[in-house]
């Protein structure tokens, strides 16, 4: 206090006050603005980035570092996360794949870990329970380590701006050999599998394409343009959500379940009918 008192008449003091005032308002605005709207859209930007990164690092150290290493450099248990980008973090955590329950050939989609869920008093009925702020903080930390794909905005993944038919062609050319013709999933080698896309959101599909999680290859913007990605998202969501005009879908995995139904239901019922028809006479005789 003494030094401030001594120097408040300093010729440069007015400039210092002006600078601090600007910093306060500018920083305050930058801090408050994203809270009102797209929280996840402006990661690693603005003056709060440093705070987010620091906060993210704390969560990372508590939740992720045991497998990925304190500096995300990777260990025998988990890969390095340097350069995977914020999109990868957002995908892995929001689909519940990370934090993993145990090391395995492939991490299954599961419920979001409690550490990334909102506190009970902040949850709203009908809303996802994921704490997007915490996820964004970890994403910001990982993004700060070596860059990588950033989390797409809502506009980036809007299926309404995609052409489903065109996306269908791209989907058939690029995805179905692993994910099956409507994305019901399929087997891969070495205990891995291509997951069912039925539960994936538009944003998750987009993130999966740009980050290539687990066994999936990366479809970057030079291979599949952002517009083509939206086309594919439009197709996937359309076929996943459309009704089945032919009746029960039988899992939409092709003729395997159809053959099962033909034998169990078809032959099963007809054998019962045959037994019934021929059993009548026996009862009369007895």
């Amino acid at each position, binding site marked *: 206090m003494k030094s401030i008192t001594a120097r408040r008449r300093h010729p440069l003091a007015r400039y210092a006050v002006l600078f601090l005032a600007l910093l306060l308002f500018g920083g305050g605005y930058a801090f408050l603005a994203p809270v009102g709207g797209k929280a996840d859209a402006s990661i690693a930007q603005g003056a709060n980035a440093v705070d987010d990164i620091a906060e993210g690092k704390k969560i990372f150290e508590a939740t992720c570092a045991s497998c990925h290493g304190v500096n995300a450099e990777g260990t025998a248990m988990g890969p390095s996360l340097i350069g995977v980008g914020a999109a990868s973090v957002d995908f892995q955590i929001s689909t519940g794949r990370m934090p993993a329950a145990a090391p395995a*050939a492939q991490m299954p989609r599961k419920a979001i870990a409690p550490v990334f869920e909102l506190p009970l008093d902040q949850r709203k009925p009908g809303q996802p329970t994921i704490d997007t702020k915490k996820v964004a903080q970890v994403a910001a930390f990982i993004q700060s380590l070596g860059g990588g794909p950033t989390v797409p905005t809502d506009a980036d993944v809007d299926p309404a701006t995609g052409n*489903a*038919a*065109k996306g*269908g*062609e791209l989907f*058939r*050319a690029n995805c*179905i*050999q*692993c*994910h*099956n*013709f*409507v994305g*019901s*999933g*399929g*087997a*891969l*080698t*070495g*205990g891995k*599998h*291509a997951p069912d896309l039925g539960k994936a959101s538009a944003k998750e599909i987009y993130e999966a394409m740009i980050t290539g999680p687990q066994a999936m290859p990366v479809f970057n913007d030079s291979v599949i343009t952002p517009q083509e990605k939206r086309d594919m998202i439009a*197709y996937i969501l*359309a*076929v996943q959500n*459309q009704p*089945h*005009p*032919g*009746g*029960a*879908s*039988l899992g*939409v*995995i*092709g*003729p*395997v379940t*159809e*053959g*099962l*139904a*033909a*034998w169990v*239901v*078809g*032959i099963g*019922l*007809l*054998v019962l*009918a*045959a*037994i019934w*028809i*021929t*059993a009548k*006479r026996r009862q009369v005789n007895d």
Partner: protein
Amino acid sequence: MSEPKQTVPKPIAGVSGYIDDRIGAGNFLKRNLRKIFPDHWSFLLGEIALYSFIVILLSGTFLTFFFKPSMAHTVYEGSYAPLRGIGMSEAYKSTLEISFDVRGGLLMRQIHHWAALLFVAGMMVHMLRVFFTGAFRKPREINWIIGVLLLTLALAAGLTGYSLPDDLLSGAGLRITEGVLISLPLVGSYATFLLFGGEYPGFDVIPRFYTLHVLLIPGIILALITAHMILMWVQKHTQMPGKGRTEKNVVGAPFYPAFMAKAGAYFLFTFGVLAGLGTFAQINPVWLFGPYNPADISAGSQPDFYMGFLEGSLRLMPAWEINIGSYTLPLSVIIPALVPMGIIMTGLALWPFLEQWVTGDKREHHVCDRPRNAPVRTSVGFAGITFYGVLWLLGSNDELSVAFDVSLFATTWFGRIAVIVGPIIAFLISYRICIGLQRKDADVLGHGVESGVIKRLPHGEFVEIHVPAREDVAAHLRGKKEIPSLEAPVDERGIPAPGVRGLIGKVRLTLNRAFRADDIPLEEGHGHEEEHKAIGAGSGHKADH
């Protein structure tokens, strides 16, 4: 009341008399309407295939009204939004139109497809019934061969049928067909060009498959079914052994009215099940597969179930090939495509003759064997089922891998071992089960059945009184026929009969012994005395042998 019994209203009598005088059908009908059919639920299984075939013909005719068998390129602008603006063949487009725009089209498509599955499945269960009851024996060998031909043709009908919509899934099957054809040594490339009219896929294959599918194959199937039925009619149906049933008679109900009513009811059951499946279970949703493009392939690409064993053998086969100079012999395609099919189809066709050769049995058989009474045949049958079943199951190894969370490679290796070891284990287990069941039969005839009456003996032991088996049950068990022996008496100089001389003769004799080994004689009356004595004397236990 005193009127003659055969009073027929004059209009009917007049018309029928007119027709009868000119066609002479009266005698024919009188004779055949009284044809006796034996009654057993398993005798109706073949009718599943017959009635499914009728449904296939009717629904298929409907589909031909709207289907365009053309590979001509077109752009879809129909009512299914996710494919609008996409280039495709006329065949695929017209299938989409049948599915979405033709009234009742999707239902007809689905009934047609379900009926095709039940057609083949019905043939399979019918064939198993005939095999396990020995109903293929003399004089029915020719009808058995017709049946094997029908099964083979059904597979061809299925393949040509599900390829027609030119969708992505069936295209995978077409590609495998091409791969098998081109893998044939020497003639492969020529045969491929012959079928596809040039490079795969070309423009010719769909129209050609269409002609095969709607004309040639169903025509032959129809002719063979007719022959199958006529032979069955003329030779009369086999019957299960039982009271009053001999090789000379048929015990059952007359065709008219009893059997006709049952057959009619069973047709309606079959039609009902097919209509129910077609209404409530979606089959072959071609709109989801997308149009065929040789560059695309989907996970979970499987053929219909009757081709599953070929798919499985292809998936299990290691990647072997032989390279001679610039020629490649792709064993990894030829072996899975031809060997399992050859083993199963050739084995089925030859089995009646092989069995007759081994048993030397030239008798006519109109009374069925119970499977237990021909343990070798039954065990060979179960070995065959296991062989086929493992291949069939492993045709869906990717779906199994995902559904049951096992490694894909583990399923492949399981299949490679099981396809060889499985049939052997199945043979041994079913053989022992047959012997056990024969012992049980011998026990029932020899010692009677448990009466539920518990008797206390003077020294305190409790025994259950056995009573002779019911007459019809006993008659059923006594239907067992002895397998003839080739063991010819050796003449005075120790030379065996001509039929069992030489290497082949010795093999035949060995097989004949194997067929007869462990044949449990029915110990008629043997045990009663002992048991009564046991109860009377109060000393023994219930049959411990």
